[in-house]
């Protein structure tokens, strides 16, 4: 393994943090979803790092599963986004705060 595992995990941590910031601070729903994708990728990176370290393909299987779930999530999420845009003519996350007291 060319680089110490710490660096891989650290990178994944940084990516996850960036993704979190994006998901928390951006208001464009599309970008929020992209940030979530980024977080998922960070997790994948960590999984692959460990899988490499332990020489155990299970981690890679998990990554495949995560990718699948991400695809499904994007499909459904974007579908929701489209119908939302049709109804409210906006993808600003703050315009969809109807479901409250």
């Amino acid at each position, binding site marked *: 393994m060319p680089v110490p*595992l710490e660096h891989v995990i650290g*990178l994944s941590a940084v990516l996850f943090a960036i993704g979190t910031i994006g998901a*928390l601070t951006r208001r*464009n729903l599309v970008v929020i979803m992209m940030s979530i994708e980024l977080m998922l990728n960070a997790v994948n990176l960590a999984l*692959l790092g460990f899988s*490499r370290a332990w020489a155990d393909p299970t981690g890679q299987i998990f990554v495949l599963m995560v990718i699948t779930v991400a695809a499904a999530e994007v499909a*459904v999420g974007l*579908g929701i986004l489209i119908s939302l845009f049709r109804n409210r003519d906006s993808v600003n996350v703050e315009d969809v705060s109807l479901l409250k007291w």
Partner: protein
Amino acid sequence: MSAAAVLFYVFAAMTVVAALGMVLNVRNTVASAMSLVVAMIALAGIYVILEAHLVAVIQILVYAGAIVVLFLFVVMLLNLRSDAFAVPRSRLVKLLGMVVTGWILWVFVRLLPGSLPAVKALPEGFGGFRDVGRELFTSFVLPFEVTSFLLLAAIVGAVVLAKRRID
């Protein structure tokens, strides 16, 4: 420092920069999407360095090739013009975000040194499609099948949601 290591750090830098570009670019959604693609491809490179060849290809095929294109597709479909989101958030939320991020990073960093496993030597053909495929269709066949159900549900859901009601 081996060539692989150099590549790793180059890709890592690319990924971080692209990710930041995606998150911080408030003017242009498509640009964000493109920087996400860059991040994905760079990550794929890192995966190759981590001996996960199959995953790397899948990463490009699915993420770069399909998911982000889907994002772009939607952005164009809705024809989102840039400026709508230029208005900055309230400082409080930003601060909270930063604090939380700091937390996460701190926790992870505290976790890192020493607590990680020793690196093992790799078996032949590790991460190749044969290896992973065998694993996938023997030990993890049930999750695999369940995933197919998930995808089916996702397809149906997407169609139902995005279909334009004709009435």
